[in-house]
């Protein structure tokens, strides 16, 4: 079975290369009974054609079953379902479970990697993992310690393991992987530690490294062609990245690449964004003349060929970052009307508060508009093609942490560093043509200070205070519907807390998302009206998924944030890691909380 799928894939690659993603993944994601990729499909739609659960009956959803992962801390991503088997991952230590859906979720196998716990302190933002990938009978686990592991999906047996980085330098893995043809595409976290991040391809069958493309550095290492790779329609030219850094700073340049990649088989291009330049103190990154300098290719949308890694086009959203507005958020590919014209578009909700609509074939900038009215650091992006500032945002001086300078507290900047939206992926419904976006409604004060670089130590260099967007509803989140062709909010539903859960849209005219209080919510895509809510055992930062088994549709969501609030209150703790220690002091409590993150699966009664 596995063999034939494999041969099929190879044949397909040879015969009809342009249309082939990974034929197995393409086939599996086309069947809505599966949830075969973290993002639903290669286009990152997070949309399901299943419609048994619909607008009319979603209100009567009940918990069908649940599964405790046994691991505390933040549970991001979602399970995969392929046929009769569900595959789940956990945060560090990155356990993997295969559950038999024919047999009440019985554990078929469990994989427990041995990882050095010293990786934990070098993970900037909790020990999360955004999930497994599957193709041709192989499960790919992207471990925190940068080992990429291939498991036999039937047995859980390790097939190969490739080491992608060194946690001692601050290199870690948090993202999922994207499998395109025989390429397992792997990103990197660590911009907060001065890592020079990259995307690397490993061969699906052997784990052999095929190519690596850094986010910054010499042309040969970042895989751009000075003549053929374009930036807003023009060739990037020689040393396009090196020229935008002072001295050797590019060697510790950051530019993380752990977001949700997408892929267009017709164009044979995959897309991702890069994170912030290290450090967060812009003064230390200024050009030799003391003026802002772009730090390419941080904060950049990349379109690359998956076979060679070569970049087709690039676009930098936030040149010379002054606020930690990483560009890592997902790239959603959608064929939509943009200003009256049908386009093969790429839509990206950036942390900087602007939603970008690009032509994904050419990299032409079509729309860049604020998707939270609170955004104030910029007055917008220059659209005049004859301007030397074409495609660049205009920075409001008052909110420029660079112009205000080192050791000056720039106040009231919106959005905060966590962005108008972080990694939690939006959903796109081809049925409505609208995007459903979980957002943050948070502003900040930002004070940069001087830091020096030490390998494996945080290289941040700014003190931040964050707070809810002023003069608004008082909460720190919104769940919005966005028209990417017009660049306009269709509706906005206020949330008390930032929405850190990935959305799901379905053909049943329902949009799902989770909240930090732990509610799974279902809303009407037409107006955001709440149709259903149910409290799961803990806060939700995972992504909603759906699948169908034996004719019945299910909706699944991970819950699990930091820990049990009771622990913190019990000991009056402020240090998160101390909280975990406190659990150990009470045997009974440790049993209670050892249930850890929970997958809750819903269905109609």
């Amino acid at each position, binding site marked *: 079975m596995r063999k034939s799928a494999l041969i099929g894939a190879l044949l397909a690659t040879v015969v009809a290369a342009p249309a082939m993603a990974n034929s197995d993944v393409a086939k599996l994601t086309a069947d809505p009974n599966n949830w075969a990729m973290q993002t639903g499909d290669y286009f990152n739609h997070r949309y399901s054609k299943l419609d048994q659960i619909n607008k009319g009956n979603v209100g009567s959803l009940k918990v069908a079953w649940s599964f405790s992962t046994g691991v505390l*801390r*933040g549970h991001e991503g979602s399970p995969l379902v392929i046929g009769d088997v569900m595959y789940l991952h956990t945060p560090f230590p990155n356990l993997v479970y295969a559950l038999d859906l024919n047999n009440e979720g019985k554990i078929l196998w469990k994989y427990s990697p041995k990882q050095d716990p010293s990786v934990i302190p070098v*993970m*900037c*933002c*909790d020990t999360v993992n955004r999930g497994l990938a599957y193709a041709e009978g192989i499960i790919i686990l992207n471990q925190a310690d940068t080992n990429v592991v291939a498991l036999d999906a039937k047995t859980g047996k390790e097939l190969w393991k490739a080491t992608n980085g060194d946690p001692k330098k601050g290199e870690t893995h948090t993202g999922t992987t994207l499998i395109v043809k025989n390429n397992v595409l792997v990103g990197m976290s660590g911009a*907060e530690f001065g890592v020079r991040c990259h995307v690397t391809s490993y061969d699906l069958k052997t784990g052999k490294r095929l190519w690596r493309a850094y986010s910054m550095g010499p042309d040969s290492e970042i895989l751009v062609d000075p003549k053929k790779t374009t930036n807003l329609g023009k060739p990037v030219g020689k040393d396009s990245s090196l020229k935008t850094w002072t001295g050797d700073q590019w060697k510790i340049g950051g530019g993380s690449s752990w977001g949700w990649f997408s892929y267009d088989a017709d164009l044979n291009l995959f897309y991702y964004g890069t994170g912030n330049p290290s450090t967060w103190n812009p003064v230390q990154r200024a050009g030799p003349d003391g003026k802002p300098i772009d730090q390419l290719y941080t904060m950049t949308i990349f379109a690359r060929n998956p076979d060679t890694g070569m970049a087709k086009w690039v676009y930098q959203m936030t040149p010379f970052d002054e606020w930690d507005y990483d560009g890592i958020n997902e790239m959603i590919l959608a064929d939509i009307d943009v200003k009256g014209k049908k386009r093969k578009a790429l839509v990206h909700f950036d942390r900087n508060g602007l939603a970008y609509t690009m032509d994904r074939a050419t990299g032409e900038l079509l729309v860049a508009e604020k998707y939270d009215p609170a955004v104030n650091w910029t007055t917008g992006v220059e659209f005049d093609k004859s301007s030397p500032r074409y495609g660049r945002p205009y920075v409001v001086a008052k909110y420029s942490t660079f112009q205000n300078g080192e050791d000056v507290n720039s106040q009231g900047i919106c959005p*905060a*560093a*966590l962005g108008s939206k*972080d990694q939690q992926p939006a959903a796109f419904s081809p049925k409505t043509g609208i995007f459903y976006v979980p957002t943050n409604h*948070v502003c*900040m004060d930002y004070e940069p200070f001087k830091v020096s670089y030490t390998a494996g130590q945080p290289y941040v260099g700014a003190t*931040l*205070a*964050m*707070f*809810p967007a002023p003069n608004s509803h008082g909460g720190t989140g919104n769940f919005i519907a966005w028209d990417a062709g017009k660049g306009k909010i269709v509706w906005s539903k206020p949330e*008390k*807390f930032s929405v850190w859960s990935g959305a799901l849209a379905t053909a049943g005219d329902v949009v799902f998302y989770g909240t*930090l*209080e*732990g509610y799974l919510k279902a809303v009407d895509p037409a107006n955001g009206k709440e149709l259903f809510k149910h*409290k799961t055992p*803990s*806060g939700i930062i995972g992504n909603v998924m759906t699948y169908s088994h034996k004719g019945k549709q299910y909706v699944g969501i991970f819950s699990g*944030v*930091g*820990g*049990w*609030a*009771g*622990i*913190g*209150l*019990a*000991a*009056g703790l*402020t240090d*998160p*890691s101390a*909280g*975990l220690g406190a659990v150990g002091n*009470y045997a*009974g*409590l440790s049993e*209670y909380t050892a249930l850890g993150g929970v997958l809750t699966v819903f269905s109609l009664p």
Partner: protein
Amino acid sequence: MMKLFSFMRPTLLGGLLVCGSVVGVGAVDLPVNDYPTATRADYVFGCMESNGRNRDVLMKCSCSIDEIAKLLSFDDYETAETLMSVGLKGGENADWLLHSPQNKKQIDLLKMAQVEAEIICFR
């Protein structure tokens, strides 16, 4: 002190306690609170784990969550609980939750309610 902060989250049997012991204040009144049973049970469980697994402690813990529920709406309780739980997540994005003045205030509300409850129930 240990006892005090022992735990968060509420009780079911608290109802019985109030009915049984506070005679005259409406003998059949259930405590005025909108806390889900699971939330109350969670609190009592944690409270008993740190103060003792016996009947006496069960009554005190139940009393404690009922006092908290009198002082805080479930909405406020849930807000504080969410903040503390996400705060335990660690990392740059969770950090601000613990350090924003507004959020600190929410957490303090709950802690103050707990102190009140301790004075009343754990003397």
